[in-house]
């Protein structure tokens, strides 16, 4: 099998990338999706709040996915469901399998990585205690409740205030469970503020910041958990323990880009984002291999995933059509400093870039009334006051081609936070 562009993953990133690649002139496109349907994790996100940027209306996850699935189907873009990619090699040969075709290989001219992310598990946190039934990642519970109609528990404690945790607090409440408390290790929430209002405050569910689970009881099914307050080093403070009886603990403690396939094919991975290191074209260190969506860096908003994926799709199209301008000798490297944890992309080729380039990043803590500054080498070219910046919300700055063309010797762009 041979295709021009093969997209690994049929979630929001893969769908938008496929649509964009087709609209930029690629005929031969294949999407490989491991699940039974396109749409990815959106299918289990049945709450509303998707699509305000893209469609100017508020949709649920499955509705947002359906819009893109329709776009894919209208363009007769090929896809394979129930298909697991097990290996990709440096020469862009993909080994995949499904029940009907068995094991097979596909040669691709360009590959777009759009595998998404997975949830951090209890094990990664080393929470002490027993290991009974009743401990779920928030996403697993979301799937059980929203797609299968099964209730994983009746008395719930949630650890972690990521968006899925907050959303699940409301969902479990709606389906008849009692959510007793949401505990967050950090002194700030990891989720969007609107979700704290409409998922916790609306139902009187307390959010305990700077708290974590220090013990888990129950040898068969979960019986109780103990919360304790943590100090500034995130260590539990003795004497602050409080026991909550519950049959369920949901964990919403972070998402990790799923890059096992990428790593095995030799793609360089950022230690900060756990996603591939990419340039302005969202191209990885392997030519013709692009990345977008949550496999690149974890997003808060699917609208931004779709936008990013469209960029990847367009660049993949240009690559297979030979329209990509040769790489310049001098690329400009981007870096985050002073609270800016990372940037996507990591470098920009000024010749190849579009007229404007979005640079996305996250900050390491909550900043209020601080300045977000952009430096070209040592020259500060912008300094914008931000009321609030928080780790739970992705930030962006935009650089224009014109700015860079004026500075042919520019080596480095630095984004940093400066106090008022």
């Amino acid at each position, binding site marked *: 099998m041979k295709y021009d562009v093969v997209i690994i993953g049929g979630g929001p990133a893969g769908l938008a990338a496929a649509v964009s690649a087709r609209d930029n002139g690629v005929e031969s496109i294949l999407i490989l999706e*491991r699940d039974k349907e396109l749409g990815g994790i959106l299918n289990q996100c049945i709450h509303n709040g998707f699509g305000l940027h893209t469609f100017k209306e508020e949709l649920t996850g499955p509705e947002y996915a359906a819009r893109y699935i329709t776009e894919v189907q209208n363009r007769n873009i090929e896809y394979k469901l*129930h298909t*697991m990619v*097990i290996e990709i090699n440096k020469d862009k040969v993909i*080994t995949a*399998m*499904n*029940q*009907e*075709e*068995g*094991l097979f290989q596909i040669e691709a001219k360009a590959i777009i990585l759009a595998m998404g992310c*997975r*949830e951090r*598990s*209890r*094990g*990664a946190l*080393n929470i*002490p*205690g*027993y*290991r*009974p*039934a*009743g401990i*779920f*990642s928030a*996403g*697993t519970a979301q*799937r*059980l*409740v929203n797609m*299968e*109609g*099964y*209730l*994983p*528990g*009746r008395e719930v404690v949630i650890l972690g205030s990521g968006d899925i945790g907050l959303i699940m607090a409301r969902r479990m409440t709606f*389906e*008849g469970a009692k959510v007793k408390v949401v505990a967050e290790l950090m002194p700030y929430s990891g989720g969007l503020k609107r979700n704290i209002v409409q998922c916790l405050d609306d139902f009187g569910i307390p959010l305990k910041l700077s708290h974590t689970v*220090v*013990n*888990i*009881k129950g*040898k*068969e*099914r979960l019986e109780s958990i103990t919360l304790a307050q943590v100090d500034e080093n995130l260590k*539990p403070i003795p004497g602050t323990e409080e026991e909550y009886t519950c*049959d369920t603990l949901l964990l919403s403690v972070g998402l990790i880009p799923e890059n096992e396939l990428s790593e095995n094919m030799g793609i360089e991975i950022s230690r900060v984002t756990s996603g591939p290191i990419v340039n302005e074209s969202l191209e990885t260190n392997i030519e013709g291999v692009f990345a977008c969506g949550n496999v690149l860096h974890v997003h808060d908003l699917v609208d931004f995933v779709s936008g990013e994926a469209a960029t990847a799709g367009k660049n993949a199209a240009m690559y297979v059509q030979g329209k990509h301008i040769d790489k310049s000798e001098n690329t400009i490297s981007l870096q985050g400093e002073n609270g800016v944890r990372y940037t996507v992309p990591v470098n920009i080729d000024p010749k190849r870039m579009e007229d404007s380039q979005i640079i996305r990043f996250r900050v390491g803590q909550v900043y209020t009334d601080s300045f977000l500054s952009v430096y070209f080498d040592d020259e500060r070219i912008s300094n914008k006051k931000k009321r609030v910046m928080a780790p739970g919300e992705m930030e962006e700055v935009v650089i224009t081609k014109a700015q860079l063309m004026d500075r042919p010797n520019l080596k480095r762009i630095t984004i940093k936070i400066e106090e008022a």
Partner: protein
Amino acid sequence: MVDVIIIGAGVSGSACARELSRYNVNVCVLEKGEDVCYATSKANSGIAHAGYDAKVGSLMAKLNVEGNKMMPELSKELDIPFIQNGSFVVCNNQEDLDTLKTLYDKGVANGVDVEIITDRNRIVEMEPNIADNVVAVLYAPATGVVCPFTLNIAMAENAAMNGVDFKFNTEVVGFEKTDNGWKVLTNNGEFETKYIVNAAGVYADVLHNMVSENKIHITARRGDYCLLDKGTGKHVNRTIFALPSKFGKGILVTPTAHGNLLLGPTAVDIEDKEATATTSEGLNELIAKAGLNVKDIPLRKVITSFAGLRAHEDNHEFIIKEVEDAKGFIDCAGIESPGLTSSPAIGKMVAGILKEKLGLEPNPNFNGKREGIIASNELDFNSRQELIKNKPAYGNIVCRCEMISEGEILDAIHRPLGAKSLDGVKRRTRAGMGRCQSGFCSPRTIDLINKECKIAMDEITKSGGKSQIIVGTNKDSL
């Protein structure tokens, strides 16, 4: 009335069952858990110890060395993962060289191939990530790593194939002496037998003390472990032990038979024989101590932590013999490390005792070969393609982290002593044992258990008892 009742389907009980099934004898195994490999046998280091550590002249030393020697052949016969990767015991300073030498002498006395290496260059060449201050190591090439679950499960399965009856969820509560043997009282009825094998792990003392005036005492010694993601096993080539202390072999760093890296165990004596909860002190100690002997352990790849219990008998010796004041009651007690290694030899010894007493004849139909569950992700391209063609279920991946297919899970459910719970599937196939810790595959696995075992969704458990995963349906309490 059966000839032999074995209490406990852990690794010792299952080894005894398999060895006995070589003879024409009626054997029944009573297990209080819902599955084999339910307690101590499921949470340990998975090491086939070479045998240099056990007390010279002890039964423990004898069975350890025997068991270690049996492992390569047995692992082939039972089709289970076993890698003879060798081990280092490390010495971090000159003062401890004497202790290392003592260990070497013990090894020689126990008949184990051991060598002290003091050439730092050679040590580093063999183990590039060894700690910088390591001055000498005791090298034992016979040490290996084995999958503790499948060793136990395979021996039980093979015993079942050869006619041994297993009863689960059956907890022994008492004994009555009868004219020609024993009546075993359980929560699941009474069983009459000529002989009893007490392989009850941390509870072996409780059972022993029900029938004998010569009391024994077993302490549950808890050990916390951390398991790192697949691939990290390459961080060390061999099993790296600390110098032994009075609490046993100390913290080890080892590749597992499946390429994970395992750190552990700590050692804390506890009274509660069910207390398998990890503690933050234990996990912190573990991480600190593991780093003393191996550097740059990729701790960000930790995927889970767990605690296991060792059945520590006061004299730190295996007790394998007929109880003097309770004829027909054979102890298989105090089986702590190197119990897993010794288990095949323990089985042989117990079967030997019973052969003598019951005058057993060989079972002409005995077949010691067991075919394991196919690890489809480890097959070459053509074999895997062929497999999926014949059995399409192998083309449907259920566990993404460990790449376990529906075919493997169906096999685990339908083979003898098949899995009935999420953990049962996990221990047989590794589905759910990977980096996402079953977040993704558990809903799909319970779906398969529901369909294949005809168990209602809200009755499916993580590991039997009251460990149900789903409690109801949406809005059922409104």
